[in-house]
């Protein structure tokens, strides 16, 4: 059950997992519980929560107000993640909408769920059948009911609090209640729902990976409103919790271990991966099963980088789909000042969301949307605006208060369709700290998304009127939402997909690529719960496969 380590630093395990985020950690924990030896290789460092919290408090005002959730996280110089303040140029973005794909993710033990809102949504059943139902996009090779038990297991693993009243569920098809009932709403959520729901916008409680009571030795959420960039008290689910649980079960986690090469045998089974340690020494990890769960950018980057004689287009890439079909919930924002105080910022960062436009016949023509009521304190933007007005003294204080308690920020998500030209490739000129090729990303959105934007903008105008909004603004260029999907797409046919319904690659019988990469449709809801569910389904598949080795 223990990983074997050799004097030269090499290792051997039943299962080798590359990436210690939510997906890799859940799989490792399950397999360790099944008495398998499991090694996790994580490119980045271990983090200290208190240090990151203090880094946030020490970050300058401008960066905080610009939602810089990356700079506070230490990085390994050998495992770069994107930074924007100033830009570190790790990713080169091209294409008409390249500027809408500035993704932030964390390369460290525990992965990107160190900073997220912990919104734990399920896809709708129809989302698995976009082609069949709406004639656009792709169908999944599995159905919602195939994934439903795994959604339940993922919710349990992450300690999700969600509405058990079916009228507030989206979707309502579920076989088990949520582990905890919904996070209670603050005044702002309640008032917004009262105002918009009679008009069909359907504000519902967001299922969240936190609880208002202690949950399995995690403290109750205390509403310190800092979910992104980091939960100071560990009440919010961070994958580091699962990493710790996995380590307690005997999983070996090697931090600052950057995988760069993959060996395959004559049957195209993966036999080993190679990694650089922090001193740039190369080591080899052999295993019976391999999972690569580095997120939908780093996974294809590794697969392309690891092209070998047998797999010249990249590992798992006979289909030439690795890195393609990149999607994110490209989105935009709407801000205004309401005519009544809503006091947003009390409680966790996101607690309610308008899902009325999440589905409908229109999806054959244009993108669905969801509208999140951001519950992040408006003090920062209010202060920026009030200072710009040149106010001083009492007038300034009152204006900041006025803009804070009346201010609203809505975050709108749209649904891009998988398109082969939206892809990650390896740069031929730019390299990272280890000399490995940095990623180039091309991203272009079509009219499906633009028409979806127009429809959403109309809905927003109406919503603004319902609040007698002043200073009503809608951003016109699309921003990223860190939900990378599609780049190792799932399908029946090895000619146009990378993995099957268990996230197992068509090309290599003992290699799995779970996470956002396999997702054939984006829907409009945050992808993490679906990724975790796919991870657990993948874990079952790995477990079955190891029994036959």
């Amino acid at each position: 059950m223990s990983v074997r380590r050799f004097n030269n630093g090499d290792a051997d395990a039943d299962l080798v997992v590359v990436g210690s985020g939510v997906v890799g950690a859940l799989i490792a924990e399950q397999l360790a519980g099944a008495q398998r030896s499991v090694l996790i290789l994580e490119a980045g460092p271990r983090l200290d929560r208190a240090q990151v919290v203090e880094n946030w408090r020490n970050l300058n005002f401008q960066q905080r107000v610009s939602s810089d959730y990356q700079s506070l996280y230490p990085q390994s110089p050998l495992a770069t993640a994107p930074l924007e303040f100033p830009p570190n140029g790790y990713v080169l973005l091209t294409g008409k909408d390249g500027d809408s794909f500035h993704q932030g993710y964390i390369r460290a033990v525990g992965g990107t769920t160190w900073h997220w809102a912990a919104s734990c949504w399920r896809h709708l059943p129809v989302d698995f059948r976009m082609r069949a139902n709406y004639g656009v996009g792709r169908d999944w090779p599995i159905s919602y009911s195939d994934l439903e038990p795994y959604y339940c297991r993922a919710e349990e693993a992450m300690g999700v609090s969600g509405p058990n009243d079916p009228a507030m569920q989206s979707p309502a098809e579920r076989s088990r209640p949520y582990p905890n009932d919904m996070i209670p709403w603050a005044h702002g959520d309640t008032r917004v729902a009262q105002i918009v729901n009679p008009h069909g916008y359907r504000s519902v409680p967001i299922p969240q990976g936190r609880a208002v009571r202690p949950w399995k030795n995690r403290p109750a959420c205390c509403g310190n409103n800092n979910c992104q960039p980091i939960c100071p008290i560990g009440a919010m689910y961070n994958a580091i919790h699962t990493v710790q649980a996995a380590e307690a079960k005997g999983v070996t986690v090697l931090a600052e271990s950057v995988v760069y090469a993959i060996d395959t045998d004559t049957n195209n089974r993966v036999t080993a991966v190679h990694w650089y340690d922090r001193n740039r020494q190369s080591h080899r990890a052999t295993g019976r099963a391999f999972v690569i769960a580095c997120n939908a950018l780093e996974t294809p980057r590794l697969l392309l980088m690891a092209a070998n004689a047998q797999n010249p287009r990249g590992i798992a890439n006979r289909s030439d789909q690795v890195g393609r079909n990149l999607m994110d919930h490209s989105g935009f924002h709407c801000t205004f000042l309401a005519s009544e105080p809503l006091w947003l910022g009390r409680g966790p960062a996101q607690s309610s969301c308008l899902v009325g436009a999440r589905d409908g016949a229109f999806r054959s023509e244009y993108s669905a949307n969801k509208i999140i009521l951001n519950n992040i304190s408006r003090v920062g933007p209010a202060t920026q605006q009030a200072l710009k007005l040149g106010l001083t003294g009492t007038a300034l204080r009152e204006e900041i208060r006025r803009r804070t308690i009346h201010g609203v920020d809505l975050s709108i998500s749209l649904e891009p369709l998988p398109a082969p030209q939206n892809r990650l490739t390896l740069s031929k000129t730019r390299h990272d700290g280890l000399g490995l090729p940095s990623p180039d990303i091309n991203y272009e959105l079509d009219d499906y998304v633009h028409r979806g934007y127009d429809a959403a903008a109309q809905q927003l105008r109406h919503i603004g009127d319902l609040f007698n909004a002043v200073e009503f603004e809608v951003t016109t260029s699309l921003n990223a939402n860190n939900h990378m999907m599609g780049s190792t797409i799932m399908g029946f046919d090895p000619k146009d997909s990378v993995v099957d319904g268990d996230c197992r690659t068509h090309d290599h019988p003992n290699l799995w690529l779970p996470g956002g990469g396999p997702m054939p449709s984006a829907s409009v809801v945050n992808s993490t719960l679906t990724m975790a569910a796919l991870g657990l389904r993948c874990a079952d598949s790995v477990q079955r496969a190891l029994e036959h080795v």
Partner: protein
Amino acid sequence: MAYRNSVTLHRRRDVLALVPTAALCFWLRQTSLAADTVATPPDAFVLLSKLLTGFPDVNPELAIRLREALLNMVPATAQAVARLVPIGLRASDDSTLMITARDAGLGEAALAVIAAWYTGTVGSGAHTEVVAYADALMYRTVADGLAPPTYALGGAAWWVAAPPPAGVSPPMAGPAQPARRPARRGNPT
């Protein structure tokens, strides 16, 4: 708990209460001003800060750090702040101060001092220095209903209680907004 104290200095007459003190300081400082055009005595800076920000009680330790940070900024800022101080000592309220400051071409400097106190960050762009987070005055304006992020305002589910009374009038329609606004670089979700 400096950052948690609720707002008390609302009315003009409270500000005017500073006048005797200000006048006294003015009288004391008159003789030293001629020799002290660049250096800003800490007490005078605190007085200036109180007037500009509208808070009668500013954190003295923070005042020291903030003043130092301002003085370390671009030299023009340091000099401007130094020239503001006597204007502050002579002014009877923040509006008068700003009028006089602008007339003297020191409006920007005054706003820089205010921005530093309210945001806790001195400077902008490439040269910034953070001097405060929770103690930044912006958080005090709403401390009765919001804590600075990373701090709890109560135990679990404290936020279901009704928020405090607004205490300010609702927003009025402002000037027309620019047609296009670029998206932020950071990712809010």
